[in-house]
């Protein structure tokens, strides 16, 4: 009876990802190139936003992966705390910098879009602000991983931080809404827009989102493999010293 937990065995994980990773990376490259090319060159300009609308193909998928990256870390942290699978802890560690970069991409593309559209690079809009706070959470999480030498202790502490941080990130998300909702500019970036977006923009956007999801997955798998190898190497070196 094959169970999903079998893949938590580092050897099984390594052999499976070894076979799967090129496919994921290749598919993500195809989806990204096709989606971006379609989006940038084959869709018409928006009648009001002109060609700036096309930044949506980077902005929306990056923002999506920034949030889902944290969710993935939360799930991996829970798995580590409950079942003590090392691969899970390492995957959470591997996902953090990727998620942080996604957050930066979302913030930067948003700023580049906001300059011509809103006339400002930055506004203390609830959505923007909560993303900035999410970025701070990513930074704290990465810094805590980097600060502790012992692997298991670091995994335990960062997992608890991830759980507590998730609650507070959610709390901040709604607190920020309460703090400044008069601006309403965030509505132009809201998820409802995806349903409102015309089909001609919608399908390349879907393709780009798929590309980003696969890209994120490929990077996380690659980084997890690196972490596992690094840990094996450390174990081997420790054994050498003992002998």
């Amino acid at each position, binding site marked *: 009876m094959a169970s999903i937990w079998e893949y938590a065995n580092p050897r099984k994980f390594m052999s499976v990802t070894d076979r799967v990773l090129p496919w994921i990376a290749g598919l993500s490259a195809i989806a990204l190139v096709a989606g971006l090319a379609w989006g940038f060159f084959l869709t018409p300009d928006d009648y009001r936003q002109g060609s700036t609308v096309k930044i949506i193909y980077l902005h929306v998928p990056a923002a999506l992966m920034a949030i889902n990256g944290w969710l993935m870390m939360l799930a991996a942290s829970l798995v580590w705390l409950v079942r003590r699978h090392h691969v899970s802890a390492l995957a959470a560690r591997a996902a953090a910098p990727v998620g942080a970069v996604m957050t930066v991409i979302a913030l930067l593309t948003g700023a580049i879009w906001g300059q011509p559209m809103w006339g400002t690079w930055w506004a203390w809009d609830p959505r923007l602000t909560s993303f900035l*706070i999410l970025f701070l959470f990513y930074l704290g999480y990465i810094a*805590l991983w980097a600060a502790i030498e012992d692997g298991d*202790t670091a995994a335990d502490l960062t997992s608890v931080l991830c759980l507590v941080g998730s609650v507070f990130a959610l709390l901040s998300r709604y607190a920020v809404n309460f703090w400044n909702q008069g601006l309403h500019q965030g509505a132009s970036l809201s998820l409802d827009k995806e349903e409102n977006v015309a089909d001609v923009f919608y399908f390349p956007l879907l393709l780009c989102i798929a590309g980003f999801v696969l890209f994120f997955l490929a990077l996380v798998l690659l980084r997890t493999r690196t972490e596992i190898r690094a840990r094996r190497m450390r174990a081997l070196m420790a054994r050498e010293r003992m002998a």
Partner: protein
Amino acid sequence: MKALLVRDLKLAVRAGGGFGLGLAFFLIVVVLVPFAVGPETALLTRIAPGILWIGALLACLLSLDRILALDREDGSLDLIATAPLPLEAAVSVKALAHWLTTGLPLVIAAPVLGVLLNLRGEGYGWLVVSLAIGTPALSVIGTFGAALTVGIKRGGLLLSLLVLPLYVPVLIFGAEVARRGAEGLSVATPLALLGAVTCGTIALLPFASAAVLRVNLR
């Protein structure tokens, strides 16, 4: 429990405990702000609640690494952990002691510093209320941060990086209560939310703090 509380209070108040440092820091922050933004009273009146809140928050942050690090250094933390008292309770008592020695003086000092910033007359009551409700949450969250970083040498900066994002909801609601109070608006909603955040953190975070402390003492 009481013995631990009394011990922590005594340690904080006696020489070298750093009692009053937070207060002095609070005073200095509030004095420095007018130098930075200019002495116009209208502007100061407008930003006074926010300045007082951020000052109190930073003063609170400054003393966090004393909560557990000193006990860790002299080994008493191990004794506390092996005592019959559950670690969750010990952590809560530590947070309470931190609030009594840092948060409470800040609450009492805030109206005095409000005069310096030309806070509006209506604002004093709500400022004190918001700080009195909000600072316990700051202490409890800070204890969690201190428990996370207790094993790290010179973890002060890391502690700030970890704790400050967690302070965001408390700061938003607390400063909102103080601001609305100063402008004579209704404070019911942010006050209720601030109280909810405080109650929630006091009820739940000690478990997380105790969990990470156990990991760090392993």
